[in-house]
């Protein structure tokens, strides 16, 4: 199923497909309507194919009729959507291409984030941390059957722990990590997280929006709306489990995009400098990676 997803992503010539369906029967307006309907189902990410007979039927058509499949993919591409996978478990899993009207923009997501680079970073980091916590090991991200479970407080504690380790390391090396007053952009990222408070009392007993748990809760609520997470309980600030769509999105889109960006910065998390996404050697990898990222040692590790 996932090989299929890879095929779809590499399909830049899709828009011309409806003009020349290579099958025997010509495309009728009814077919186009069905294809568009399938996309419309895909745009409701919380809808389960198993719960809707029409949806399931259209998915079956997509699987069995190549001409129809091409038509649907073309409609998606024309709308500015990328097809990740079409299957009964994930449904018509589509996601927004970069400039599409469906894309989520940071400015719409969090008002403060446009003005404050620290806030912008924290919101992005919250999404990355949720994914890292949901798929803690490379095997988990690769395994189609894996269902990740997270809690809001758990994600916060885990990032804080990582920050604390860096702090200890910096302290052990006798490094002064306090940033220069007039250059906030040079402050180490972990410090921005570490100094933001984890939670805070508010007058109306809601979560403090600017606290780290508030930021993570916002990310999680957003992912629930995207059909990526499902709420399973209220423990530890809210407990959630992942869906097949989330795994696809993280594996095929977000993870690779962020990785590319990181490599462009000259940070190569694997020692030999190749960009293959090998799982690092268990326990040692953490230390190695932490070192590799320090801007002070960039020269030793850049490719």
């Amino acid at each position, binding site marked *: 199923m996932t090989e299929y997803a890879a095929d779809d992503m590499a399909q830049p010539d899709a828009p011309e497909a409806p003009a020349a369906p290579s099958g025997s029967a010509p495309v009728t307006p009814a077919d186009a309507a069905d294809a568009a309907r399938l996309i419309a189902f895909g745009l409701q990410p919380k809808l389960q194919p198993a719960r809707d007979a029409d949806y399931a039927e259209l998915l079956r058509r997509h699987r069995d009729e190549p001409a129809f499949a091409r038509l649907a993919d073309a409609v998606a591409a024309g709308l500015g*959507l990328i097809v990740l996978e079409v299957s009964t478990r994930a449904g018509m899993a589509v996601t*927004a291409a970069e400039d*599409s009207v*469906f*894309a*989520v923009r*940071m400015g719409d997501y969090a008002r403060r984030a446009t003005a404050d680079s620290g806030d912008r*970073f924290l919101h*992005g*980091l919250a*999404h*990355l941390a949720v*994914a*890292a916590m949901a*798929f803690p090991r490379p095997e*988990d*991200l*690769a395994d189609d*059957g894996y*269902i990740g479970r997270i809690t809001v407080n758990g994600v*916060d*504690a885990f990032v804080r*722990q*990582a920050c604390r380790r860096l702090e200890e390391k910096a302290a052990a090396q006798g490094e*002064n990590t306090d*940033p220069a*007053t007039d250059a*906030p952009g040079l*402050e180490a*990222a*972990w*410090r921005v997280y570490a100094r933001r*408070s*984890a*939670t*805070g009392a508010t*007058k109306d007993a809601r979560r*403090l929006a*600017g606290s780290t748990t508030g930021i993570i809760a916002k990310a999680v609520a*957003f992912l629930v709306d995207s*059909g990526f997470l499902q709420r399973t309980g209220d423990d530890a600030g809210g407990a959630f489990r992942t869906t097949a769509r989330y795994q696809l*999105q*993280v*594996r095929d*889109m977000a*993870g690779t*995009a*962020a*990785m590319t960006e*990181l490599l462009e910065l000259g*940070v190569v*998390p694997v020692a030999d400098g190749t960009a293959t*996404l090998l*799982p690092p050697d*268990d326990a040692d990898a*953490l230390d190695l*990676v932490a070192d590799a*990222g*320090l*801007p002070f040692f960039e020269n030793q590790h850049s490719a």
Partner: protein
Amino acid sequence: MPFRPLSVRPPTLCDVTSAAPAAVPPQLNGPSRPAPGPAADEGLARRLRALACTAPLHDLDARKANLAGEFGVYAMAEVALAAIDLVTLTMDFDTGADHEQIVTRLQPRVAAQAPERPHGEHERVARWVLENLINVGSVDRGFRAVYGTFGADGAYVRRDYDFKLIEEVPGPGGTVFLRTTDEAVNVLVGALDTDVTSAQIAAEVKLEVLISRGRLADAQLAAEQARYRTVQYAETLRKTLDATRRNVRAVDWLQAVPDMIAEALDHVADRYRHENAILTNIRKARDEAEDPENKRRAAELVDIVKDCIRRHTQLQSRLLEAGPLFRAEQDRQAFATPTARSGLDLYGQLLAPLLPLPLEQAGRVTDAFFARGTGLRTPASVRVGDLVDMLLTPPAEREHLGAEMPEPDLVETPDDSRFSEEQLAVAMELLALPPDAPRRLSGLLADARRQDPELPYLVALLAVHAASPSVGTAYRQGEPSLLFAVDDGTVLDDPEFGGADLIVGTALLDAAGMAADRQEAT
């Protein structure tokens, strides 16, 4: 009751700009001019940071003049120190202190400072002090001080030092608890930048000396310091154990953690012995003291030391839970079927390398993840007709029973057992060792590998479990024999496994004797 801030400038990030450290005037003819550099500056920077921690307290007294009303009579710094005291003492292993409770318990002291003032004012003062210690008005809910250092190249750099005194942490059920930070504990105890363990030992030695000389007033101070240190130590360990719980791989269970646990257990045992000795001494002092004041002080001391012992016991039980937790997690993570594909290690390859980067670069990576990781949103479009209807609709009555529960979406859990019944039978047969001939794990693994490439994993798993055999269960069920494994220090040399080359054997149990015992017991 909604808190109305006293009408002064809101608690802002307090700028504690210590008068810009004017560079040392050049003493060109002096023979020993200190070279400005990181090494020379480090001690100064540390002291500047320590100094900054006290600034919010001074600031309270400086700002009380601006409050609406006559608040000069209250000693705000004193109330603040008392608040930090209270939070530190109520800070427990699991949770922290409750906000309201701290406010309530602060009031007697505030009231004592101005007994003629109304009760409401006392509460407002207590609240004002506590909220200023949290610094509710700022985004980070913390403080920032600016200080200067000389960089490696001799350039003068102004740096921001961010710290908190009381922080808010999530508690069970969505509640918010207060905890004092390390900085606050250090400011309070007055021992800046010291090692936790050694400071505690020092405090207790001091206590013993004080008691032996009969100086109980000082002894109480030392005992309280010992308790703060105990709390701080427990806090450090709690954080480490939490990390273990989250990710087995991330923690070095071969060396570091067992060492840490052993150290902590030693520490607990040591302190427990020590504090019991002190307890006996003070009890004696309490009973023999003539002066009623001394008697009262000794009684207070007994309470404090008892509390220390209680905290140590709590810490110890946490330490003992760590081992079983690790084994359970290892079973889940290390003995599952490996997948054929390799995935991206989100933590190791993305998150961990990103955190040490400067904010500006790290932001680019998180932006990329955000842009591709959030999925899609269907843009909303509004019709004027709908809008008018929506605006005119009266607000819906709140449902008495709350929102409707979404129908749970059940998924079938796949049968993920890795080994078949047949494999288990073969492995058990392999492990059915005669009681007089125990074997090495390496030999068993080699035998197992000859039969089935998957079998060694099962054998290893069973052997690891046998290292901690369920003697109690075997006893209750009257088993005739029990599989056990012992580590004699030999290292396992195997292409697939690492660790100790366990000696695996069968122990015969005295079934008849045990049955008789059980009879007697019932």
